[in-house]
């Protein structure tokens, strides 16, 4: 069975290669090929899963060693895979949701002339993401890590003719590269400390080095995780990433890639366990992002950006949980999986709405859609109930356990983190209810499609004419079926995982588990969560359900305006990094031209009159000089030959 692991990666990689190099001949069948290979990967994953379930809990890790990748003295990096329960969970999530989104994209991208290439990029993403979770060492993980970054770059900028898409793609890659610095340094620290960066030896002997070193490695890994998972302070790219086609937002920027940071932290649990300071910073980053994303999500009128804020916030929950150590690892991953279902479903629902609404993304121009798009409404609604944590649905089980775990950290920290998580639950209920109400309820606020100039700036997924009123309609089967499947997951996955602690027992051998010191009972936490949830829904209802929603956004309070601008973080980046950087490079160009060049030439001139000669030579003496130079060398060679003769 072990030998099948490489096929998980190879199948979509083959698809990417064929689709991207294949040329136009494949235009007609390319999307089927891409979907088929994604499904093949899922099939292999399922077979491996069945095999794994048949083994004892301590005997479930499978390994496959392909070859020695970079054999250099004292340095060993292998192309080798490790499939344990943690990786398996990701494999099923990635290939499963990935296949569904391939199916959805067949319909969604039907009118795009570059659909073949789109599927090539999607396959490339799957291959890289699977490599990321299957690698048995940090350097190979790095390859997958950057591979998903590349796929994300290509897909965010898929509509490259839109300057905003090209800029967003570049921004995402650059911000991620800042995180990659962290990953590079972490790997280098591991190498100098342990002489290797393979998971097994590093994690097994993490206890043998100092806490300071573990803290340093942990913080560098956290930096990497912040980049990939859009956590404060490297979160700024995720909102812009919504420029990509909606299936991309669902798969990459909600369900899978952005959760890679959580994977990295949980995988490196042994390092974080020995570095309480790094853990605390991780938990704080998670808590801050949790609120940050939620606040941003409240203010956005663009349905995808509101969902992006939500993604950021939900991953904040996961990072918070991962920062709690063995108390939280399992629940971080559990929430990651349930979030994968409901957030992917929500994005696909948003795509379905846009599909029916002339690619309009502004929720202020939606309204009353529940009657026109019943399947979308129901599946989106179930996703909504799941994410706010409605009792019995997936989010209820996974989020509740994180809030409990945060309190269980104990001490003042536990109270603060737990309260933040509770507050986040209230805001989540508020902004998701807002999305729900503005989209599916209330009056129709539909507007005619923008005119031709602006039309170039929206997603060309549906062939609509400028000036036409939208005719909302249910999306084709290829789109609704994936939404229905994901809705099932949104409803039942959490309960299935939580009842009898199935998920806990499954992951515990890899991640470890501690119960912690809960200051209050689990029931109290659940009731408190329910209470704040009700408050959040009620406020949203009061603001957006009872009153009509204005088509143009009101000016709003200072906080609202700041939140619309991503809490001014972008403005800060722009002023400090972009403008500052431009000034720096511009002055350096000047320095290089005038100063460095001048000083070097000048020094040479003072030695041998070089500069004067240089000036003279510019005026046409160049050739004569070269000839004399040539002559000089000829004489030199002749002289040496002569010496030999003598």
């Amino acid at each position, binding site marked *: 069975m072990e030998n099948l692991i490489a096929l998980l990666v190879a199948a979509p990689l083959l698809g990417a290669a064929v689709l*991207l190099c294949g040329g136009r001949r494949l235009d007609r069948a390319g999307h089927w090929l891409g979907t088929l290979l994604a499904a093949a990967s899922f099939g292999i994953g399922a077979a491996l899963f069945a095999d794994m379930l048949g083994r004892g809990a301590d005997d479930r890790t499978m390994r496959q*060693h392909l*070859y*020695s*990748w*970079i054999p*250099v*003295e*004292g*340095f*060993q990096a*292998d192309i080798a895979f490790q499939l344990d329960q943690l990786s398996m969970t990701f494999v099923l999530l990635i290939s499963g949701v990935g296949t569904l989104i391939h199916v959805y994209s067949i319909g969604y991208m039907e009118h795009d002339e570059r659909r073949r290439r789109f599927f090539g990029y999607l396959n490339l993403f799957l291959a890289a993401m699977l490599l990321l979770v299957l690698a*048995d060492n940090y*350097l190979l993980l*790095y*390859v997958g*890590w950057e*591979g998903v970054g*590349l796929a994300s770059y290509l897909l965010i*900028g898929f509509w*490259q*003719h839109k*300057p905003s898409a*090209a800029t967003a793609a*570049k921004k995402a*890659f*650059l911000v991620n590269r800042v995180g*990659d610095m962290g990953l*590079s340094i972490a790997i*280098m620290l591991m*190498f*100098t*400390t342990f*002489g*290797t960066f*393979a998971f*097994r*030896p590093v994690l*097994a002997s993490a206890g*043998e080095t100092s806490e300071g070193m573990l803290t340093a490695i942990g913080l560098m890994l956290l930096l990497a995780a912040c980049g990939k998972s859009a956590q404060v302070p490297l979160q700024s790219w995720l909102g812009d990433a919504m420029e990509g086609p909606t299936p991309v937002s669902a798969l990459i920027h909600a369900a899978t890639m952005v959760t890679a940071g959580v994977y990295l932290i949980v995988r490196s649990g042994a390092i974080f366990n020995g570095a309480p300071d790094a853990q605390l910073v991780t938990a704080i980053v998670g808590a801050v992002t949790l609120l940050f994303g939620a606040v941003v999500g409240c203010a956005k009128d663009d349905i995808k950006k509101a969902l992006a804020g939500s993604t950021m916030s939900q991953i904040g929950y996961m990072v918070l949980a991962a920062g709690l150590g063995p108390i939280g690892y399992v629940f971080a991953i559990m929430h990651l999986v349930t979030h994968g279902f409901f957030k992917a479903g929500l994005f696909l629902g948003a795509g379905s709405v846009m599909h029916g609404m002339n690619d309009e993304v502004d929720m202020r121009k939606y309204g009353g859609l529940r009657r026109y798009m019943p399947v979308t409404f129901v599946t989106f609604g179930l996703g909504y109930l799941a994410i706010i944590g409605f009792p019995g649905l997936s989010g209820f089980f996974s989020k509740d356990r994180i809030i409990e775990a945060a309190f269980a950290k104990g001490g003042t920290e536990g109270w603060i983190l737990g309260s933040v998580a509770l507050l986040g639950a209230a805001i989540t209920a508020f902004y998701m209810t807002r999305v729900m109400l503005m989209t599916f309820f209330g009056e129709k606020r539909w507007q005619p499609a923008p005119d031709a100039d602006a039309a*170039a700036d929206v997603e060309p997924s549906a062939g609509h004419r400028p000036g036409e009123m939208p005719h909302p309609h249910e999306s084709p089967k290829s789109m609704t079926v994936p939404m229905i499947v994901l809705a099932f997951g949104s409803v039942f996955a959490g309960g299935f995982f939580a009842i009898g602690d199935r998920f806990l027992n499954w992951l515990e051998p890899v991640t470890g588990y501690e119960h912690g010191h809960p200051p209050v009972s689990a029931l109290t936490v659940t009731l408190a969560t329910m209470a704040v949830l009700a408050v959040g829904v009620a406020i949203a209802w009061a603001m957006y359900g009872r009153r009509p929603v204005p088509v143009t956004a009101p000016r709003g309070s200072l906080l609202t305006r700041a939140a619309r601008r991503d809490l001014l973080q972008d403005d800060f980046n722009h002023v400090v990094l972009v403008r500052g950087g431009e000034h*720096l*490079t511009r002055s*350096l*160009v000047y320095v*290089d031209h005038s100063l460095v*060049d001048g000083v070097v030439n000048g020094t040479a001139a003072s030695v041998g009159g*070089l500069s004067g*000669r*240089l000036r003279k030579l*510019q005026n046409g003496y*160049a*050739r004569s000089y*070269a000839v004399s*130079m040539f002559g000089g*060398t000829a004489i*030199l060679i002749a002289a*040496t030959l002569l*010496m*030999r003769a003598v």
Partner: protein
Amino acid sequence: MDFPLLTVTAAVPAAGAVLTAAVPAARRTAAKWLALLFSLATLALAGLVAARFDPGGERYQLTESHAWIADFGVRYELGVDGIGVALIGLTALLVPFVIAAGWKDADPLETRSPRWRPTQGFFALILLVEAMVIISFEATDVFLFYIFFEAMLIPMYFLIGGFGDRAHAGTDEKAAAQRSYAAVKFLLYNLAGGLIMLAAVIGLYVVAGNFSLQEITAARAAGTLDMATNTERLLFLGFFFAFAVKAPLWPLHTWLPNAMGEATAPVAVLITAVVDKVGTFAMLRFCLGLFPEASKWATPVVLVLALVSIVYGALLAVGQRDIKRLIAYASISHFGFIILGIFAMTSQGQSGATLYMVNHGLSTAALMLVAGFLISRRGSRLIADYGGVQKVAPVLAGTFLIGGLATLSLPGLAPFVSEFLVLVGTFSRYPVAGIVATLGIVLAALYTLVLYQRTMTGPVKEEVRRMPDLRPRELLVVAPLIALLIGLGVYPKPLTEIVNPAVEHTMSDVKQKDPKPEVAVGSENGEAGQ
């Protein structure tokens, strides 16, 4: 006597140069094919060198040794170690692409001009440079090396000054003036370096009594040849200066953007991917081998200069408006990495630096040649003159992107392997330097992606609307380079295998051992890799 394979490998392109130059004026196309044929024959010979080379054998192999100038102890001594084999391979591999990419660069402007001879000259000069570069990689006699190290300036000078990029903003006169400025600047910088090196070469003879690299290195290692500390340092500086100009290292780099900007794209590739490598190669072979103590003495300063090159070159690249100058500054940043790896004096650093020389050659060739194809279509080198090219020429844009991704060392492509080895090798001895160098990771992404965004994405500019996509000849040039970048990224073992033993020898020359990890991890991971 054995077949003199190394001599023949260098002599074939030299003979090709002579024959190509002798082709009658009207038979331009024949001259091109002849040049291509000879470059391919050289590639085959380089392949033979690699095949005959035994990584587990002697340090220098395929050696040839003949008396030359007995009075001065100058000998015609050739030999290759793994590093030499890798770089000869790179050179022989790239020149056919340079010739194929420059197929039309030296054609007369009027199609029917029977007396036009420069075409022949262009290809003959390229082959001549190839011959001299190859023999520089082979020479184990310091004087012999010096002669060809200097002599290669002449054909390079004519290639830069005589065959400029036809895409030029100003008038023809202005273009010619800028071109000859670039050519003369190239010449004078390198000549100045060469003169100082000549003094050091003579000084070395005075101290050692001969020019044989092997003898001197062996004597140094055995302790039979003592050099006064100051003498060694001065000699080191003399050699290092010349190599730092050629490499080029900050602040001696300013000739490179001029030269690469004004030359045709294939010649720019020849400069940065092939000729400049002689500089970094010579640092590894001559500076470290002949003057190990002085090398260690100079290390702190060299490392700082290398770091400055990395960051400074990248920042300057961000600020460029000219595509080719941007790539030139990117190369300066990359040469910083190579020099960093050499002087970190760890196995990973030096293996990484050697791999970096090869991989940088491939990635820059891919990026620069596609940039050349792009520039020839629009007749402008300015980034601002492009926009939306991916819409009209997707294959061109795609290959340009892959070249760019290789330049930013994307994992999975060959340059990542070498860059990471350099970083790790540096970090394990000089953590701060290693961390500063990782800044290059972010900055490389910045200049590459900004270049791609401004030229390839966005609305289609009117002037590029009718731009044709890559032609078969052009695709034939780029595709193998991309295949190699991917192949060596996924499976670099063939290269590391021949490079590793040479690096071990260099490490023992400088009497350095790799820093040991803090925690000795059990044999567990050792098994996993075997």
